């Protein structure tokens, strides 16, 4: 059979962001993949060395709009750990609220894209409409639909009153049955099932070998969620079960995300019900001594890890982070192997890849 190499760009891959693939094919099947990254490389890790800690909070939130809250909150956690600050309990819960609300919006966006790619355009619109409830909630509570600006060193920058809490609870209520319904559609609807079941499989062994994280790992049966394995913020006081599937296919990844979106609703409700009174942040300008520290969190796409090295000034000596999409790209090669070329966009989007995160 004839071997050819084709180059695919964002349009062919069905991506919102520029990424290019060099795909080797045999007949109409994929047999090799090279990911050509770098289009969105903005030199951000270097830029963070020229910005002080306060500026970096905002800069890091612009790493990627889909997981935008995970970056400043994890960065602030690292700084607080170094400075020996214990943030107020109310701030811990409010950070979790911000993270979970972003998780719902992120997972729904991916779910909409997957629906679009399999040709379910009505479903696509329906999911986008549903996501608007989350977008409007973010704009109402935080002041922007994407970048919440919720974090500061020592806590959070928002302090919802009873009215805001009621509003948010109400919005969550509006999400519940549509989210359940959506889960059932991805689980059972014939067209979706046919398009996603057994497609783009990553076995548990392969998942381990590539060190993949997040829904991609959990869909392959790996029981790993940073919120459980290395609890941070309020998560040690919230109850939830890690969403796991076993098939490792496109369908399993979608189901993990939808289960997590439903769970996020419950997590936010728990936070709002348990929300302690008190301040939302410590006094603002801490001394950050010289040192090095690791901080981790479970971003919508999986484990996010930050490494911060300081020298006592308010500029980092080194700030390094690894986003969840990073290890997941390499595993794509395995998922695509033997699949027809026409399925590339679906399988690529099933790992919910984030390019701005990866390229930085």
């Amino acid at each position: 059979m004839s071997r050819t190499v084709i180059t695919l760009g964002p349009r062919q891959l069905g991506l919102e962001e520029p990424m290019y693939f060099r795909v080797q094919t045999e007949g109409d099947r994929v047999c090799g993949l090279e990911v050509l990254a770098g289009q969105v490389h903005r030199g951000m890790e270097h830029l963070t060395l020229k910005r002080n800690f306060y500026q970096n909070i905002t800069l890091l939130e612009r790493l990627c709009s889909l997981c935008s809250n995970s970056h400043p909150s994890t960065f602030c956690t690292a700084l607080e750990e170094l400075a020996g600050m214990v943030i107020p309990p109310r701030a811990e819960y409010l950070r979790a609220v911000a993270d979970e609300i972003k998780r719902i919006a992120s997972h729904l966006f991916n779910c909409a894209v997957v629906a679009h790619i399999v040709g379910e355009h009505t479903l696509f619109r329906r999911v986008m409409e549903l996501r608007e409830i989350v977008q409007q909630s973010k704009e109402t509570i935080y002041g922007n639909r994407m970048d919440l600006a919720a974090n500061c060193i020592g806590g959070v920058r928002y302090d919802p009153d009873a009215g805001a809490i009621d509003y948010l609870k109400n919005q969550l209520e509006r999400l519940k049955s549509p989210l359940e319904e959506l889960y059932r559609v991805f689980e059972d609807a014939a067209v979706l099932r046919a398009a996603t079941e057994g497609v783009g499989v990553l076995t548990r062994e392969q998942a381990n070998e590539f060190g993949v994280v997040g829904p991609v790992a959990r869909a392959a049966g790996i029981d790993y969620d940073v919120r459980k394995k290395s609890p941070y913020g309020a998560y040690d006081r919230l109850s939830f079960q890690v969403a796991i599937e076993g098939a490792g296919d496109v369908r399993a990844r979608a189901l993990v995300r939808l289960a997590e979106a439903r769970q996020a609703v419950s997590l936010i409700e728990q936070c709002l019900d348990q929300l302690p009174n008190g301040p939302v942040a410590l006094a603002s300008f801490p001394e950050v001594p010289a040192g090095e520290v690791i901080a981790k969190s479970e971003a919508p796409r999986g484990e996010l890890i930050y490494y911060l090295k300081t020298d006592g000034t308010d500029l980092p000596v080194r700030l390094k982070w690894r986003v969840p999409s990073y290890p997941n790209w390499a595993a794509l090669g395995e998922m695509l192997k033997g699949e027809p070329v026409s399925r590339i966009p679906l399988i690529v989007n099933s790992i919910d890849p984030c390019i701005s995160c990866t390229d930085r």
Partner: protein
Amino acid sequence: MHTCKVPPAPKLRLYRINTGSCNGCDVELAATEALTRFGLERLGLSFTADPTQADLVLITGPLTVRSKGKVLAEYAQVPDPKITVLIGVCPISGGAFRDSYAVLGPLDEFLAADVNIPGCPPRPEAIVAGIAEAARLWRGGEGPQLAPAGFPAPANLRGRMSYRAEACVGCRMCQHVCAGGAIRFEEQEAGVSFTLWHNSCLFCGMCSHYCPTGALTPTGEWNLAHPQAQKYQMVEQGVVPRISCSCCGVPMLPVVPELMRKGYRALTRETAQLQTLCSECRQVRSIGGLQRCTK
């Protein structure tokens, strides 16, 4: 050229180019496209995946070194005349990523921009307003002036930042925490002048969060779309005047009531007098006052 007579305005096609964005503006564009409530269709606008069919080009992102070749080639495929819309502060000024080794910065150095939609990201309603302005330009300034529908702006929306010189003490904390490089202070004879350039502002509100006096506050004003000619006029400005110390006469920046209220809990006639004293005279006076009290 069109057979269809009603509506008279031909349908315009939009083409999107991402030059290396955080995807915020792109995800919002996707929502703008998908949801009828934002009203792009009503404006006679639709998206195309074919650059050669496009009339309006929508650009997001700060133009990375790596993307430049592809971006400019794609842009060149869109036939002239075309109207170019820059969405988000990234393409307008480089936004948060300005001055990186990997970013080439303002797009108007590489192509002719027509409309700018500041924000980081702007809400879909703002994107639609900017695109509507672009469509009007394309139609030679005719067509419906848009009253954007959608979701009413919530009370604590972080839109255009506003500045009150009367409340500013010139401490420059806002500049220190601003990741957008959007704030400048300048020493002038009359006082210290403050400038905030909206085309570099990330809508993050850090300046107002850390401002000790409340001189900076976000407003709910979200429609900042403007023609390219106004790019550098989109500012917030003010001068904090220097006064002479009422005791020794040395020129100084006034101590604003907001700060006095914080420092002294309440404004009394006595503390009001302290406001017109330079820091040295103030110290002498308040120590003296304190001694009187404790006696």
